């Protein structure tokens, strides 16, 4: 039993807070039942179900803080975990940046739970594998994929009377389909909260189509090209860039949003007019919990509006120091786009390159957010609005800040998978000018 009801969770958290003799106590309880199935070479390799529930207790004596966790919930266990946190706190040196626990928050429930996902069975997972493997086999292709699903609950409470409880569900699916001669490779990823919006049978056709179409790729010269980036291709770059939105990093002089001479670039226009990005915990199809890791209430928060930096992320300590307001840290990122599909963007492109996804993204220079990575699983040359032929993969060296200054057009936003971003993310396909490819890769 690892999914507690609201009443059960509240009873446990109330007991913990009552047990603590510290100046203040913050506790959280999280439980999940997560299932998965993995397959490769057209055969199931592993599958399993993991149930877990964990209680985390953080206490403070003055500015001394200690944290302990446990996954047993009888009275003796609760007393033990509180004592361990208190013992650690007493050993800890003063934290001069200590900020007292948050006050009572007025959370607004967000639509993070879908009953259908909670009802997924081992047979359903096996069928997802079969729906990937069977059409691949029939087409002389080889499928390797991973399907995972989870039901979770989260509850937070503290000694100042705050309390919140919410359930959530998540489904993540990725499948790589390769031709049996290993000369072509395609990929599909889907991420939803509600499994009734997922259909392996139809989604797998995306990977199958790309695998077949990507054989016999031609080599193009590296250089600057107009690109159509599918949502999965740009999500990793944008997620990386968000680290620079930390107010403290910017104020300390170690972010691309640092101002020459000191301070930060809040309020300045840093991106193309077409770029608008915000966080909204209740956004339909991309909802997240209504509180952040600190228990702070999340609200709709503009981050970039028409290219202007609208907000930076302040920790509670930094907000107090800089007399700014600390808002709940975003759990999702929504980028505003248009109505066109990826293929509509292709149609309007005279010469360019279609990128299915990007891979192995790493920071090269944090000063400019210069990143490097590669294209993978379906890269195609576009001419006069048509996909002409598959091309060999490229290594790219590009900054998302430069990329978001070179926006020609944005399509209809889509939700990207868990592997592409630590955020729940809705990102449009993008048409970008002068994207920098620096070398060719022989990898398929």
């Amino acid at each position, binding site marked *: 039993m690892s999914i507690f009801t609201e009443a059960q969770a509240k009873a446990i958290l109330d007991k913990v807070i009552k047990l603590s003799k510290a100046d203040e106590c*913050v506790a959280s309880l999280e439980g999940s039942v997560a299932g*998965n199935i*993995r397959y*490769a*070479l057209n*055969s199931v390799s*592993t*599958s*399993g179900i*993991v149930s877990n529930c*964990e209680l*985390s207790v953080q206490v403070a004596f003055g500015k001394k*803080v200690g*944290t*302990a*966790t*446990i996954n047993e919930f009888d009275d003796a266990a609760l007393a033990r975990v509180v004592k*361990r*946190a208190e013992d*650690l706190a007493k*050993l*800890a*040196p003063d*934290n001069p*940046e200590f900020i007292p626990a948050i006050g009572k928050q007025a959370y607004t429930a967000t639509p993070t739970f879908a009953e259908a996902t909670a009802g997924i069975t*081992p047979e359903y997972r096996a069928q997802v*594998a079969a729906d990937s*493997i069977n059409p691949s086999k029939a087409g002389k292709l*080889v499928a*390797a994929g*991973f399907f*995972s699903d989870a039901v979770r609950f989260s509850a937070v409470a503290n000694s100042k009377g705050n309390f919140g409880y919410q359930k959530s569900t998540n489904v993540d699916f990725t499948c790589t389909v*390769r031709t049996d001669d*290993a000369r072509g490779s395609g990929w599909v990823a889907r991420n939803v909260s509600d499994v009734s919006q997922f259909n392996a049978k139809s989604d797998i056709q995306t990977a199958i189509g790309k695998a077949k179409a990507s054989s016999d790729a031609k080599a193009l010269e590296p250089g600057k090209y107009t690109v159509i980036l599918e949502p999965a291709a740009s999500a990793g770059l944008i997620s990386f860039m968000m680290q620079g939105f930390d107010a*403290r*990093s910017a104020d*300390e*002089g*170690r972010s691309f949003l*640092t101002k*020459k001479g000191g301070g930060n670039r809040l309020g300045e226009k840093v991106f193309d007019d077409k770029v608008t990005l915000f966080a909204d915990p209740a956004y339909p199809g991309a909802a997240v919990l209504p509180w*952040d*890791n600190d228990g*702070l209430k999340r609200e709709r928060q503009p981050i970039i509006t028409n290219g202007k930096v609208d907000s930076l992320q302040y*920790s*509670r300590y930094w907000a107090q120091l800089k007399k700014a307001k600390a808002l709940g840290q975003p759990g999702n990122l929504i980028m505003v786009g248009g109505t066109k599909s990826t293929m509509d963007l292709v149609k309007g492109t005279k010469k360019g390159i279609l990128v299915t996804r990007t891979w*192995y993204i*790493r920071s*090269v*220079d*944090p000063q*400019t957010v210069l990143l490097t990575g*590669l294209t993978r699983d379906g890269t195609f040359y576009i001419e006069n609005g048509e996909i002409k032929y598959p091309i060999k993969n490229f290594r790219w*060296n590009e900054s998302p800040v430069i990329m978001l*200054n070179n926006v020609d057009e944005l399509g209809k936003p889509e939700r990207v998978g868990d592997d592409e971003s630590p955020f729940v993310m809705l990102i449009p396909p993008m048409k970008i000018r002068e994207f920098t490819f*620096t*070398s060719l*890769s*022989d*990898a398929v």
Partner: protein
Amino acid sequence: MDRRDFLKRTSTSVGALMLPVYGHAVAAEVLATPADKAMRKVLADIALNAATKAGATYADARIGRYLRQFVITRETRVENVVNTESTGIGIRVIVNGTWGFAATSDLSPDAIAKAAQQAAAIAKANSKFQTAPVQLAPTKGVGEVAWATPIKKNSMEVPIKEKVDLLLAVNNAALKAGADYVNSIMFLVNEQKYFASTDNSYIDQDVHRIWTPMTVTAIDKKSGKFRTRSEFSSPMGMGYEYLDAKASGKVKLPGGVVGYTNSYDMVEDAVAAAKQARAKLTARSVKPGKYDLVLDPSHLWLTIHESVGHPLELDRVLGYEANFAGTSFATLDKWKGKDFKYGSPIVQLFADKQQPTTLGAVGYDDEGIATQRWDLVKDGVLVNYQAIRDQVHIIGEKASQGCCYADSWSNVQFQRMANVSLAPGKAKLTVDEMIKDVENGIYIVGDGSFSIDQQRYNAQFGGQLFFEIKEGKITEQIEDVAYQIRTPEFWGACAAICDERDYRFGGSFFDGKGQPSQVSAVSHGSSTTRFNGINVINTARSLG
């Protein structure tokens, strides 16, 4: 390698509540208490018997107690101290020629028997999809044996205060030497692992690892420019004695750089880091083009890891990682042909799970196989891979090479990278002598940015410090350097390797692989090595 998870959890920008990464946070004294061996044998036998009764033709049980401690600091203060403990049993079985796995943290006899039955039931269910039965290479049981990392000082027994004092001394030294910011972390691991199998093996192992990452930042407020320099230590398979700062552990390198072997002077390195980070702010930007690269072991380990370690993992070669980490260019036909030139004739690359002080050193792997050393690339030619019991028949080996590992009792063990290293040159050669021969080159120290494609052909690497070499001499520190390679051409350009006097290890604490993802720790040894005519790009950009 996947540092992302770790960095996320030790990030200085997150709120005060830091959840432990593994298992439950525990009080310090718990970390120093050993687990009971006799009890573990009784519990393991319960698992093996229940599995056999449920139809298993083979079963193994791993009872693990995984202890970890983080001490996280920045500038003059401690951000967090976290102790974690995770204990449980993982049971793996073969039924109908198919693997099944189940794990539980409940170590009562009933729960263990139930988990064994669950593993058997999963194997039976999955056998419907099995195309070929598991072929397990035979192994002789080893009876009751034990192995422990040969540590001198158990890190878990060193008081937290001593660790905090050292890190704060490090930070103060860096600040005094001109750093604007400094983050330093101590990360300590003790895996107490008990393995038992139906082959009559009962193996008790006590594994220790230590890592002290550090980032020193220098800022020029006027220009808005910032630069960092990370530690020149390496994560090691050692106890707290690694931090003893003995003179014998220091290596004087060109460019006024100090490297470290099996003893690290963290305070000294912090001072150097502060000065070198400051120098980076005004260092000349590199002119892109072809250069001869002289790569220090503190840098080359990561290139070996990505361009040799990963492509020679047999599960990747076969396609089992196709949907995540990828496959490999080093396909079976290249190995079968016995003539695939992986590198120049002086290139000898080998796997070794026994080298002392390495992260991968254990007596036995996580399926009970005694560890060993074997060649991967001999005289420049591909000769072997890294494999485990159910794979070695594919490459004609009679016994497993011992590469099986799980990062927790709760995860199933699978093929992981051994320590993969470049053998030192046979002829006497120092780093200074190597540099004397270079007309137009760059000397690179420390690991930086790294990225490689899913078949391990095209890679790009940065570094920590770069020095221009002109006509046999180091001229100045330069910046904005990254080099791009195609793996076989890069190793084919290997022109000289320093001798064993310069042999040092680097390594990764968090090499990621698998779905769900697991981490493993692995070392890579080398001496300073020269590669001719490598493509160097300039990474400086302007944001306008």
